[in-house]
């Protein structure tokens, strides 16, 4: 037992590192002068260390703390993605004028950020229903605070309120569902649950309700229609940096947890490794629900995005739509689908962050979030304009950008699994999505700027960050075998 604990702790180092970072951040915030910068640097350092530790885990496949958490390729993949997200968010935050002006005690902001990341690490690894719930709540609760961190702003306050009410209810659904599931199966870790289900349970009705409630819980996290309502308002109200974080990292973490939960507890063990496709434990056809939800999400989100005037809302809806695209992968019940999802998420991270970062820079310089104010931007700052154009085009899924690859893989997997109607809907939605992405591009380039507004100058730092985001978006578009390889090898979870 003892050495198991020790062993586990050894495997748990990254998370520990994060905790240390958290503490360090608090301390730094207390003692250091001129806090904002320094705390940020401390957190950056901590994240870097964590990254190293995570990279050491590549290839491991263990379950630690008596089946509380799994350290397996799947988890590692997502940890890396989340760390990248975290790093960029911290960098963004250092550049954000919004935070400087409207947020007090910026140190806590970074602390909370670290906390969220920690929670996400748990989410991607958790194999115990209780821990899943705890991780879920840990991220949520700190997110509530972050969303309202610029509390002097009305919109920020409103956002946090909506967020917490909606979030709390959803977590209520989740825990209620879990309670039923746990009760029926008598096991708290998902392996136990699976074994019980494979044995067959009599209370099918209860099982169904439990499943659906859990799906609802997850759906809120990954913004699936009709459980997405909070997202546009919160994304709109929250500080751009946090919006970015919610739109990318927390969504990705949610997906990771969802995938693991369903793949392990609702799928016949041993059915996976052989052929890529899974067989469900008898009874629950949850993937049909997901299919419908995915289609609904894709269509609704794209349609609602059409007329948005505020760029943040636009991107909010676009990110909801993308959640729908990603969800398609889980419907397929195949490792191919999962790997496609992972590829999509990894790429989505970069392009979406890029778009949001441009939005942030624009609101830094011009102090606006209205699409109409983007007119002539391409002429006032060609670099910014081109970068934004590339990110949007990538989001629309044009070659030779990475966004195209993401779509290729998710669509391909869907076709291969024979879900033609689903992919047809997705294709149609893609066309619709072009409208609103291009609208922004049009404003930036096809409209000449007014004489009054001069050129927009970027500082080298922001430029560097933009370039850092552009490189993967373009590079993965023309040479994507690394990411594909990695994803394909990262679908294996402990216990399959």
């Amino acid at each position, binding site marked *: 037992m003892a050495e198991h604990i020790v062993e586990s702790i050894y495997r748990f180092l990254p998370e520990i590192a994060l905790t240390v970072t958290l503490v360090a951040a608090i301390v730094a915030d207390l003692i250091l002068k001129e806090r904002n910068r320094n705390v940020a640097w401390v957190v950056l350092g901590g994240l870097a260390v964590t990254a190293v530790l995570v990279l050491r885990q590549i290839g491991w496949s263990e379950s630690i703390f008596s089946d509380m958490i799994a350290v397996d390729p799947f988890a590692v993949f997502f940890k890396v993605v989340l760390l990248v997200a975290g790093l960029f968010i911290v960098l963004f935050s250092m550049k954000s004028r919004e935070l400087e002006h409207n947020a007090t005690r910026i140190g806590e902001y970074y602390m909370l950020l670290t906390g969220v990341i920690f929670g996400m690490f748990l989410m991607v690894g958790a194999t115990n229903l209780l821990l899943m719930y705890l991780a879920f709540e840990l991220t949520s609760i700190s997110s509530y605070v972050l969303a309202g961190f610029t509390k002097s702003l009305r919109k920020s306050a*409103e956002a946090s309120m909506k967020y917490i009410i909606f979030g709390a*209810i959803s977590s209520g659904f989740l825990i209620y569902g879990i309670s039923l599931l746990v*009760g029926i199966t*008598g096991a708290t870790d998902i392996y136990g649950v699976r074994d019980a289900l494979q044995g067959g349970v009599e209370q099918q009705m209860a099982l169904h309700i439990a499943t659906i409630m859990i799906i609802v819980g997850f759906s809120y996290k990954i913004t699936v229609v009709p459980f997405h309502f909070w997202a546009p308002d919160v994304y709109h109200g929250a500080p751009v940096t946090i919006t970015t974080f919610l739109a990318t990292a927390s969504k990705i973490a949610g997906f990771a947890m969802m995938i693991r939960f369903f793949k392990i507890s609702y799928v016949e063990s041993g059915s996976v490794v052989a052929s890529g496709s899974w067989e469900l434990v008898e009874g629950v056809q949850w993937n049909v629900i997901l299919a419908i939800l995915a289609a609904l999400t894709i269509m609704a989100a794209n349609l609602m995005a059409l007329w948005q005037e505020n760029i943040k809302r636009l991107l909010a809806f676009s990110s909801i739509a993308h959640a729908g695209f990603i969800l398609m992968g889980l419907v397929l019940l195949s490792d191919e689908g999962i790997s496609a999802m992972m590829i999509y998420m990894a790429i989505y991270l970069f392009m979406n962050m890029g778009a949001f970062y441009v939005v942030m820079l624009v609101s830094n310089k011009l102090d606006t979030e209205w699409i109409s104010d983007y007119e002539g931007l391409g002429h006032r700052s060609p670099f910014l304009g081109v970068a934004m154009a590339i990110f949007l085009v990538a989001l629309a899924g044009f070659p030779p950008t990475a966004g195209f690859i993401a779509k290729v893989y998710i669509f391909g997997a869907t076709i291969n699994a024979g879900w033609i109607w689903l992919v047809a809907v997705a294709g149609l939605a893609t066309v619709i999505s072009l409208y609103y992405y291009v609208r922004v591009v049009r404003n930036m380039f096809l409209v000449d700027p007014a004489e009054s507004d001069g050129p927009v100058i970027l500082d080298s730092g922001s430029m560097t960050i933009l370039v850092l985001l552009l490189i993967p978006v373009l590079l993965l578009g023309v040479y994507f075998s690394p990411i594909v390889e990695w994803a394909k090898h990262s679908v294996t979870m402990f216990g399959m």
Partner: protein
Amino acid sequence: MVFPEWLAEPGLNHFLVVSAILFSLGLLAVISRRNIIMVLMGIELILNSANLNFVAFSRYGALSLEGHMIALFVIIIAAAEAAIALAIALNIYNRFGSVDVEQISELKE
């Protein structure tokens, strides 16, 4: 005094039914009440209905002590959530001068 037959021997289902009712009430409260504090109450109800399940299951169902333990955790979470929620509610009051959920709807469409 004589209990009706179906209440004579309280079992798992009774608790489940009660928790279901609790849950629904909580949901109702959240949806219908204007005052943010009341909404938060509703949330508490929901969480506790879940707790009731856990405890009931570990008393009657296959679940052993884990049930109680989970319930404890949930209570803690609920507390934390409530704390944050109240803070936010306060901030809302400062900004909007009201805690009426209906009126706080500037972000829309």
